[in-house]
């Protein structure tokens, strides 16, 4: 590696580093500092005060309880799902795979509203009195994260060499025995990786919990929001943010270790093996998956669509027509369509930013420098760039709020800057872009680059002909993820959106929190619109996905 290449790659790394330094490290750093100090002096009394309240312990306990239950159920249902959808084949499988994928990218407020529409009094399952219970919250968390397990484990399973299991069968093991003693241990790294990422998503869940939890249930996330916006207790919010950061750091550590093990796993075949037809012997996983998809995944969405068509006088499109208004008794500052416009504009900007940052990060982190110091630098950068993936959107939003007033002592107030919301959404979306592109780049055999070099391509032409070409193939999916995430982003945006320019998720949350059948109807209709838009974007992105890419999400 020549000095010139070091300089060039240093500059490439500097762009995302500067971005994350200003919009991630600075806000979270300010948050932590505020939790530990008063007027510049070390002061831990904030911790004593916050942890002296039984309420805090209840919230922390609930966070772990919900995340634990959500993870266990998502993994429990996800493994049979991965088997049916990725290890077997059947007619219409692509549709089933797409159906399972959609919930993950659905905006949290939409899912919250969908479950409310199903479980609240007057809904199809209203008789079960599950609205505002732990069951409802956990069901919604499983709804979201099922696809994470299915896709992570399924993608791995599809590439697992089936001959190890066949060897066990030939040696006399019945199917379940071969599964438990051979296949399951081989899947362990993928299951661990999926479980830790799902635990992270559950523990940092915000929108669904806020909508479904009512006053009785919450997580550290919702508590930060409540302390900030309802009680104006920034100190308590800062302390809770520090707690949240600690939880996230631990889970990320576990997940990182699992990921490294998975990347090291050697039982994988380069291509997907031929899959057997779904047969009679598969009745148990097939039945579990079928029931799960129908009841837990389809029912809430169907209920949402059906109830959005229900009006005061029978069926009709009145709720959709009302989207051009500002709601019953004018609860909104803008019409829902105007909010949709804001959302799309913001999401486009956020996607562009997330893409620039994410592509640069992925390219830098996928280098294989020869020197040991170079490799260590890459490992450090990898860890640094992944932090925002775990840190909750609420922490980002809250951090912006307190840090960007006179940032670094400069006399300017970034809190009123119109680019703030897109930037916050980009901070949330960029790690997803990296995680989509990185496996594709890391899977490039270094000899492919050498082949190009031997054929006369200089370092930069090798880079263009191999690395950039590969990135381009996975770019569609990355764009889809970034756009969908930005479109539905609620945690950070709820702190930062200006009252006169709300985004669609903000408007939906406001509508569902107000009384009146008209407002509820509008919330349902707006949720359908947002869900359709997000799902449409993801379907388009999926088509652009290369067959060989083994993404992580």
């Amino acid at each position, binding site marked *: 590696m020549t000095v010139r290449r070091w300089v060039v790659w240093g500059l490439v790394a500097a762009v995302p580093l500067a971005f994350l330094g200003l919009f991630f490290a600075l806000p979270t750093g300010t948050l932590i500092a505020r939790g530990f100090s008063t007027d510049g002096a070390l002061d831990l009394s904030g911790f004593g005060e916050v942890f002296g309240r039984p309420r805090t312990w209840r919230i922390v306990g609930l966070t772990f309880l919900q995340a634990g239950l959500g993870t266990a159920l998502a993994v429990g249902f996800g493994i049979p799902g991965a088997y049916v959808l990725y290890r077997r084949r059947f007619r219409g499988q692509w549709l089933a795979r797409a159906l399972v994928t959609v919930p993950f990218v659905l905006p949290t407020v939409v899912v919250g509203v969908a479950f409310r529409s199903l479980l609240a009094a007057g809904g199809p399952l209203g008789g079960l009195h599950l609205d505002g219970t732990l069951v409802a919250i956990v069901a919604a968390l499983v709804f979201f994260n099922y696809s994470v397990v299915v896709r992570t484990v399924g993608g791995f399973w599809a590439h697992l060499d089936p001959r190890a299991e066949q060897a066990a069968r030939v040696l006399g093991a019945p199917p379940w025995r071969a599964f438990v003693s051979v296949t399951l241990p081989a899947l362990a790294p993928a299951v661990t990786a999926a479980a830790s990422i799902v635990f992270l998503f559950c523990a940092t869940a915000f929108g669904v919990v806020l909508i479904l939890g009512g006053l009785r249930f919450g997580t550290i996330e919702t508590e930060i929001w409540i302390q900030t916006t309802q009680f104006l207790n920034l100190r308590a919010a800062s302390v809770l943010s520090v707690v949240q950061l600690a939880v996230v750091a631990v889970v990320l550590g576990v997940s990182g270790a699992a990921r490294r093990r998975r990347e090291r796993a050697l039982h994988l075949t380069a291509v997907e093996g031929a899959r057997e037809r779904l047969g009679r012997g598969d009745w148990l996983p097939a039945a579990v998956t079928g029931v799960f998809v129908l009841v837990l995944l389809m029912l809430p969405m169907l209920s949402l669509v059906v109830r959005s068509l229900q009006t005061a006088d029978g069926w009709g499109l009145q709720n959709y027509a009302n989207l051009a208004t500002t709601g019953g008794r004018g609860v909104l500052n803008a019409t829902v369509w105007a909010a949709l416009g804001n959302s799309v504009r913001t999401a486009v900007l956020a996607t562009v930013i997330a893409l620039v940052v994410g592509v640069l990060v992925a390219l830098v982190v996928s280098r294989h420098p020869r020197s040991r110091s170079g490799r260590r630098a890459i490992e450090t950068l990898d860890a640094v760039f992944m932090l925002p993936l775990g840190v909750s959107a609420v922490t980002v939003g809250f951090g912006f709020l307190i840090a960007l007033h006179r940032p670094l002592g400069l006399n300017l107030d970034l809190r009123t800057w119109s680019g703030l919301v897109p930037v916050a959404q980009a901070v949330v979306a960029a790690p997803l872009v990296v995680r989509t592109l990185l496996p594709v780049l890391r899977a490039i055999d270094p000899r*492919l680059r*050498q*082949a190009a070099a031997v*054929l*006369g391509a200089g370092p930069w032409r090798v880079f263009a002909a191999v690395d950039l070409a590969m990135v381009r193939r996975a770019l569609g999916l990355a764009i889809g993820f970034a756009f969908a995430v930005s479109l539905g982003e609620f945690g950070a945006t709820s702190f930062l959106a200006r009252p006169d320019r709300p985004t669609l998720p903000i408007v939906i949350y406001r509508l569902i929190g107000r009384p009146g059948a008209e407002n509820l109807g509008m919330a349902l209709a707006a949720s359908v619109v947002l869900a359709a838009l997000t799902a449409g974007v993801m379907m388009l992105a999926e088509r652009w996905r290369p067959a060989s890419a083994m993404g992580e999400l």
Partner: protein
Amino acid sequence: MTTTARGLEVRDLVVEYEADGISLPAVDGVSFQVAPGEVLALLGPSGCGKSTLLRAIAGLEHLVRGIVSWDGSDLAAVPVHRRGFGLMFQDGQLFPHRDVAGNVAFGLQMTGVPVADRKPRVAELLEMVGLAGFGSRQVATLSGGERQRVALARSLAPTPRLLLLDEPLSALDRALREQLAEDLARVLRETHTTAVFVTHDQDEAFTVADRIGVMMSGKLVQVGTATELRAEGIDRAVRAFLGD
């Protein structure tokens, strides 16, 4: 440092690899020459350092000591992509995002051959390796043997002054290997290509090469034509490995 030799000269070459923090020699003081138009096979068991030696000639390995030169000029300061050598890998390493013609044309593109001249050259090469009309096929749809044929065409397209072949046939089954070894020998002769061919298969080496160098534990223990090697008898340790 210069010499007067024509073609490839490797002198006192040492390449090390690292295992558990200790540096061990993979190639240990190897010297040989390959004249223009000649095909040299490097024969030896796996792990004897023959592939590392090949990669060192291509410029892909760091040299601890020694010289690789072409027509008397040292290549130490010449980066991989300016050496004008070709390298064919065991598993082809075709570019998955380009079709067959796009793969074969890659080297031509890099050396600045005009678009109009690339097409006939690509067709000519595909014909030579027995894949006429395969230009628009996706590489994912090719069989193992077809892939290696495309890899050979791709390596030969920019008319490299030296072609390095790293066990190009080892991943194929026996019948195909014998067939391809003969095709390879024919193509190298027809194109008067200077080549170094790494293999662990004695028959393959005898079929393809003019001279054979036998490698053991990082050292070149014998060099000679097939007849010479048969006459003087192959080194005992090598014979044990080759199963004679």
